[in-house]
């Protein structure tokens, strides 16, 4: 679209190629190179991000021989042997089931309780709400390894070790601060006016909350729930120490697959895939929400 028009007013008839245009061309060129480099970097970064899991997954489809081969084999025919071993011989199904139940339950519970709590924090002015919020935040500071200990004792005394319920309760409790933190940020965004309008119209506070606030907060609730789900699913330390047998979830179970002398990497790969792929897929599906929730909650502070 470069139309050459002459300048009618001044004395010189020039084409569009002037000094400033030349410097512009140089600038454009540099920009194009820069852009190309950026694309390059970004693509490489994507590959780096993707590769390790891709490799693990690939390894899980190899036979034992192939998995241990040097130099590493890139092309092979996929076999599902490792998966079969895991599920039929090493009880992977149980662990998977445990993980699913525990994550989903704790996610649900913590989100419900947390949202209600956050609602109360944001909607009502009562003394100490600020300090409570702060205290909730500081819960994060404790190293999880340390916290396991007393929980371990409680569990032992109550005989609740190695049960699914205890893990569910535990996880719910652990995620609660996080839920409150995020939901608080979101709920603060929702103006009270609409609720008040509903209440003036005659609704009780509960109906107002249910009909008005809830729909508006739904995306936030979902995002938070997803986040908690991921965190629960990935949790290792507590499950490792507290649930050694029947209630074991997936992450610690990976270690058991490693217990024999030589690490059977292809089986480990299968285990890893079982653990990580569902969650990754899940995260990818809802990534928009996820990112929004994560960053939004942060920025709100």
């Amino acid at each position, binding site marked *: *679209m*470069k*139309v*050459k*028009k002459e*300048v009618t*007013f*001044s004395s010189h008839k020039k084409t*569009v190629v*002037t*000094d*400033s*245009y030349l*410097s*512009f061309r140089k*600038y454009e060129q540099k920009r194009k190179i820069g852009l190309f480099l950026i694309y390059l970097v970004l693509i490489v970064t994507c590959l780096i991000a993707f590769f390790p899991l891709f490799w693990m997954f690939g390894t899980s489809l190899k036979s034992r021989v192939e998995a241990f081969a040097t130099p590493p084999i890139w092309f092979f025919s996929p076999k599902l042997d490792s998966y079969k071993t895991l599920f039929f011989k090493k009880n992977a199904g149980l662990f998977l089931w445990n993980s699913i139940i525990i994550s989903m339950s704790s996610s649900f519970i913590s989100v419900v309780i947390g949202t209600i709590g956050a609602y109360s924090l944001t909607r009502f002015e009562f003394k100490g709400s600020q300090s409570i919020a702060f205290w909730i935040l500081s819960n994060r500071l404790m190293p999880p390894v340390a916290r396991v200990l007393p929980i371990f004792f409680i569990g032992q005394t109550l005989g609740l070790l190695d049960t699914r319920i205890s893990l569910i309760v535990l996880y719910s409790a652990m995620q609660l601060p996080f839920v409150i933190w995020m939901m608080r940020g979101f709920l603060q965004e929702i103006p009270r006016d609409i609720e008040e309008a509903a209440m003036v119209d005659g609704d009780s506070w509960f109906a107002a909350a249910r009909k008005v606030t809830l729909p508006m907060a739904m995306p936030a609730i979902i995002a938070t729930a997803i986040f908690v789900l991921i965190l629960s699913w990935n949790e290792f330390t507590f499950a490792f120490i507290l649930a050694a047998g029947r209630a074991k979830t997936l992450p610690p179970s990976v270690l058991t697959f490693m217990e024999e002398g030589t690490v059977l990497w292809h089986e480990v790969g299968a285990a890893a895939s079982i653990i990580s792929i569902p969650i990754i897929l899940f995260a990818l599906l809802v990534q928009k929400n996820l990112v929004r929730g994560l960053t939004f909650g942060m920025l709100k502070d």
Partner: protein
Amino acid sequence: MLKNLSKKFGKVEAVKNVDLTVKDKELLCLLGPSGCGKTTVLRMIAGLELPNSGTVYIGGREVTYLEPKDRDVAMVFQEYALYPHLTVFENIAYPLRVRRLSNTQIKDKIERVAELLDIKEILSRLPSQLSGGQKQRVSLGRAIVREPQIFLMDEPLSSLDAQMRAVMRSELKRLFKKLQGTVIFVTHDQLEAMSMSDRMVVMSAGKIQQKGTPMDIFERPRNSFVAGFIGDPAINFFDCEFDRKLGKLIVNEVLVFPLSKSLNRFLCMRDSNLNKLRMGIRPNFIQVSATKPSSWSFQAEVYICEPQGTEEIINLQFKQSLFKARVNVGMKMTMGQKIWVSFDEKHLYLFDQETGQTLT
């Protein structure tokens, strides 16, 4: 001697073949409705946008593709664009620091500017602590302190409340006259444009509709768009047909407006195909009376009245058309009342559907 010669051509067809010269020490206004391209023109002068074709000259220097920083222009943004984390002093000092002036020099200049704009007391405050008017003055200060060749302003008054606006209109004009600055500003408020500029450029849909002094544009609009845009309340339009045999204009097939012989001849000469016209008459030239006046007139129904203090704006309805008249307070009117309306050919504007033909 500043010579601003610029020609900007289509960019996303936002600006089409704009041709414009701004004289030294002149206050020029780009006026037009939202989306007409005026802000784009301004940004092309500043260097924040680059044209697809055409050239920009500032002070005889060709700057079309230069970075904003190399163009020696200063810009005041619509939302002031102050640096929120810097104090007022630092905000104004920013361009000077970029140019690596010494601290004493900076302090000096800022003091002078602060004196000029009366912002000495707020120098140590943050933008979040300022009122709208103060923010604008800081924004101005940042521009002024650079002593640039041109000042560019994007809707300078639209973020202020009505009262501030009225005050700032005169203040700004005075300020720039005092500084002897060359200013180009953009607005959609025709009142602003009329009162503040030495020359105006009315734009619409990317094209320049008319250039000239405010009075020029007001009294001799080139087309119906310009006529309709300038003036408050807006000009009244009536579509009509030109009957050359009888020498009359027929509105709504009912109202017949007789044309003087000279006007008739004039119209016939212009174009033998002239048929559909549009009449324009400004509200202040419409006369109303309770009784039938001696000159040509017709009856219309009072739709609603808007008292304005010493004057009154009467909305009238005739058949399907609504129009407004501005009169001095005198007659008592009620809704639905039928009164006599008349106007003089002298004040009539006639337009084709496209161009304007003017008669005053």
